[in-house]
């Protein structure tokens, strides 16, 4: 009886120790997925905005006719980005989601595929600084909008003209 109890406890110890080993290996693998991704870190170090005349070259309103564009203006948002991780990052659009003061979603302009056919997205090597621009359709008279970056902590940015 005592021997049987000893054997049971021995098996229990071995199972727990092996379980710890398996956990450590699985955790390590998950770490690479969760930590080693540029999406987890925001490269934005600064931003500014201004209203520009019309839709700039190389950009288009993705869904013409879906929303009325009368009375809308194009806000050019210029971001300063820095490569903060040991991995080059490529931006092809959609750095942030944009909302007006009432919480209504604002549309960003899409890149014209024909114009950008030979140009890769903006690439951001580690340690480098680049300028990146996005264009957002805003109602006339808008003084500020809110942006939520798709990378990093998703902290709200207040973008003012």
């Amino acid at each position, binding site marked *: 009886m005592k021997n049987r109890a000893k054997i049971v406890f021995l098996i229990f110890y071995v199972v727990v120790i092996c379980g710890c080993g398996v956990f*450590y290996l699985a955790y390590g693998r998950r*770490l690479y997925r969760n*930590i080693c991704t540029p999406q987890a870190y925001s490269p934005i170090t600064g931003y500014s905005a201004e209203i520009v005349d019309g839709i700039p*070259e190389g950009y288009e309103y993705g869904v013409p006719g879906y929303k009325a564009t009368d009375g809308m203006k194009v806000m050019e948002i210029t971001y300063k980005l820095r490569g903060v991780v*040991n991995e080059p990052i490529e931006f092809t659009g959609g750095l942030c989601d944009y909302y007006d003061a009432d919480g209504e979603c604002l549309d960003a302009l899409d890149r014209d595929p024909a114009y950008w056919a030979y140009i890769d997205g903006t*690439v951001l*090597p*580690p340690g480098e600084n680049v300028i990146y621009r996005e264009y957002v359709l805003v109602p006339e008279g808008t003084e500020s909008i809110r942006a939520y970056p798709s990378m990093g902590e998703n902290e709200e940015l207040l973008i003012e003209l």
Partner: protein
Amino acid sequence: MKCGKCGKQFDEAVNGICPMCGQPYSRTGRRLISGDRGIRRGMVLLLLVIAATAAACNMKKRHIAGLYQIVDFESETAETGQMFQINGRRLKVEKAEVVDTSALSGMPKDQKLIAVKVSLMPGDGKRSITTEPGMIYLSDGCICRQWLDERTLDRILSPGEPSDGEEADYSPGEVLTEYDYADDVLLTERRGTFYFLMDEEVQTASISFDQLRREDGISVLEKRVSVPLSFEEGTP
């Protein structure tokens, strides 16, 4: 023999355990560890193993995060015509010129084609097994552009409508890619050209070559050599 637990005297040849408290004894007379104590020690050991696992996981997380997030590398600048060492190779950037693409139909609007001529030579020593070639890119301080691959270059360099009876054509020569310069076997000198697209108004830029170090499954930027360039107008 005297029991170590209750002090009762008994003959161990007759009784294997103390007749008073039941404490077992080994043949050598030492008091055996009771079953309960053994289990307790085992549980303490298990808790230590679990705590050690948790500590090891935390340390690994910090190590991996540090490797990935901390961008700290050796930065070097070289002049055109100056030899430098990177990725186990010796390189020399000879010159950069703007390719005349006025007669070519595939050129994107508001862009110019920059040709950077480079010489590659075997390095002084053997490349470390943890060293990996990184990016090659052109930067003007505002944007960074990677080299054009041969397929993209072919589309850009497709000739336009011939005018004045002359065929518009541009021969790119030996087009270099990152793979050429990262090739493990480089026995003799090679010369070729990296091609980049840049905005029309850019007059100066720098070409950078990155060297990576593989550590714990992560490619860490170890060294970057940048060569400032000013563009000459080339001939077709």
